């Protein structure tokens, strides 16, 4: 889960022609573009991850656990 896939390494270098806009089919992105996108995506995502576990979810698990244990206590 915590491993990061190297996002920028999967395409060969783009050519000038493949960079042209309004292409009919998706051009292959250069690795730098991919790296940049990957970086932004992960930064956005990691900001969410860094918020940790909000209390409501720990409480939820405790509540659900408690419901089932009632007859045991």
């Amino acid at each position, binding site marked *: *889960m*915590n*491993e*990061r*896939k190297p*996002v*920028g*390494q999967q395409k060969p270098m783009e050519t000038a022609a493949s*960079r042209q*806009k309004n292409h009919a089919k*998706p*051009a292959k*992105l*250069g*690795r*730098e*573009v*991919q*790296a*940049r*996108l*990957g970086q*932004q*995506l*992960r*930064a*956005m*995502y*990691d*900001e*969410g*991850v*860094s*918020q*940790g*576990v*909000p209390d*409501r*979810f*720990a409480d*939820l*698990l405790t509540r*659900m*656990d408690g*419901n*089932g*244990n009632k007859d*045991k206590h």
Partner: protein
Amino acid sequence: MAIDESVRKAVLGAVPSLRAFAISLCGNVDRADDLVQETLVRALANIDSFQPGTNMSAWLFTILRNHFRSEYRKRRREVEDSEGHYAETLKTQPEQHGQVEFREFREALAHLPADQREALILVGASGFSYEEAAHICGCAVGTIKSRVNRARTRLAELLSIDSADEFGPDEQTRSVLAGGRE
């Protein structure tokens, strides 16, 4: 139900990433938290169907993803939704929990078709392999690859990233990237 301590740990351990996935999918923290809550309730109600020793995260992501997609379809029927509408609602939301920084990126992400968005997030941010992402989305590995590629291409267009010149000041990273491979 009594929750096994190891299950409790594994579930809680998966929550931060599960939540980041939900936020990235729907672009709304409150709705994402509801999604995570519903996912946890469903998961624990069906914990018997989880095979010990398999990936708890992937299992939870699958439940959340399926729940999100069925909800998305429902909403879509209700309001004749489209990616455009979703993007609009994103724009009118008040800023939430430090999202300002990634606003432009989130908006671009919101413009992607849902299947491309989820594929890109799973592979590019959650750290799942193509195989795991395919399993989570219930499709072929090749389909995930193609969705990820299309998502990247579209994002680059939306964000006008089409050459190294637009990368801003991070020269060092760029030169490392340019010189580091092949």
